[in-house]
C-alpha cells in the first residue's frame, strides 16, 4: 500500500484551493504529491491511502481541488477504485471527499 500522511508529507495547516490564493493550497498538494503517488499506484496496481489525521483542518476548497481535481484528470471511477481515505479525527470527511470525487464534473 502506498501512503500519504498529509500533516507530515505536506502540511499540518493546509490552505485554500489555488496556489494564487496562498501557501499549501489544494492545487499545490495535488500537483506536487497526490498525482505522483497516484501514478505510482496505477503502475503497481496498488491502493493509495491518504491519511488526513493530525492536521488543523481541511477547507472544502482544498479538498475539492485536491481530490476533485484528481478525478477530473484521471476519471472519477479510476480514482474511486484506487484511493482510500483514513480520517479518524473527523470521520465525516471521508464521505465528503468521496462526494467531491463523484461530483468532480458536475
Amino acid at each position, binding site marked *: 500500500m502506498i501512503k500519504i500522511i498529509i500533516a507530515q508529507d505536506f502540511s499540518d*495547516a493546509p490552505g485554500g484551493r489555488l496556489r494564487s*490564493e*496562498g501557501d499549501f493550497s489544494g492545487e499545490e498538494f495535488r500537483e506536487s504529491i497526490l498525482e505522483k503517488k497516484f501514478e505510482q499506484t496505477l503502475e503497481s496496481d496498488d491502493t493509495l491511502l491518504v491519511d488526513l489525521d493530525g492536521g*488543523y*483542518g481541511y*477547507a472544502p*476548497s482544498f479538498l*475539492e481541488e485536491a481530490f476533485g481535481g484528481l478525478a477530473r484528470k484521471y476519471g472519477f471511477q479510476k480514482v474511486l477504485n484506487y484511493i482510500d481515505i483514513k480520517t479518524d479525527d473527523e470521520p465525516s470527511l471521508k464521505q465528503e471527499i468521496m462526494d467531491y470525487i463523484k*461530483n468532480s464534473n458536475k
Partner: protein
Amino acid sequence: MAAKAMQKTFKKRKKKKKKNRNIRKIALSYEAIAPAVLSLTKNTAETVNYFSEIINYTLNGNSSRKEKKIIHFDLSGITELTIDAIMYLIAIIHNIKRKMYWEYEFKGNFPKNLNVNKQLVDCGFLKFFSSDYRGIARTKSDNITIETGSKSEPLIAKQICDYVNNVLGTQRVYTRFLYNILIELMTNTKQHAYNNSDKYFSHKWYIFVENVNHSIKFIFLDIGDGIPKTIRKKFTEKFIENMDKIFNKPILSLEDNEYILSALEGHKRSQTKLPYRGKGLPKIYQYYIDNNIHNLKIMEYVFGAKMNNMMTY
C-alpha cells in the same frame, strides 16, 4: 566693495528661493471627530456616517500632490468603542494611503477615556501606524490582536485555533471546523471580494479574536464589494434588476439578504460558473446550522452613501 556686497546678497536670496521651491504645502484640512459611541453594531447610523464623510472627503478631490492635506482623527471624545469600527478605520486609512499616498497625511489623538484607550491599545491598533504614543502600554490582554492579510494565511488560522484551544482547554480536533471557516473566509476575500473594485484598493481582510466570558468572539471583515454584488446572478435576476434601475423602483429584485442566503444555501452562485466551485459559504452555513458556531452575523455596510443604503443581516 558695494558691488561685491550686492552680489553676495543676490546669491543668498537665490539660494533661499531654491530652498522654498522644494517645500510642499501641507495644510490641516479635515477634522474627523469620532462620535462618542464608535461602533458599527451599537451605533450603526452615526458610525457609518462618520466613515462615509471621511471617504467622501477624499473622493471629492480636495487635495493634490502639490498640496498635501492632513486628516486629523479626533478620537478623544469616544466613551464606548467596539473593535469592528476600529478595524474599518484601519481598512479605510490603508486604502486612502494606497490610492492617494502623496495627497494625504494622517494624524490623530487617543481617547481620553482610560478604558477605551486601553481597549484601543490592546487590540493592536498601534501596530498599523507609526506613533509616538506614550500612554498606556499594552497589557497582557486576553485576545489576539487585529491581524490582516491579502491571501489565505494558514499560520494565522493555526495561531487562532491554538489560542481558542488554550482558552477552552480543548484539543486541536475540536477547532477543525474553525480552521476551515477561517481559510474559506480568507480565500473568498482573495478570490471574490474585490472583483469589481478600483484596482488601487488594498485587497485585504482583517480579523480580530477575543475571549468574552469564556466565549470566543470573532470579527472578520473586508471592505470589498459585498456578497450580493460579487455572486453570480441568473439571467432573469439581472434582467429584473436592470428594469428596476430604469424605473428607479425596486419591485421584483431580490433583496440583498436573499442573495446572501442563496449563496449560503449553495444555490450555484460561484462567479466562476464552474459546477464544482462555491463550496465555502455553504460549509460555513452548515457549521452554523449544526451549532458549531452561534450568533453568526453577516453585515454589509455601504459607505460614502446615504444611510438608507445601509443594510445589516
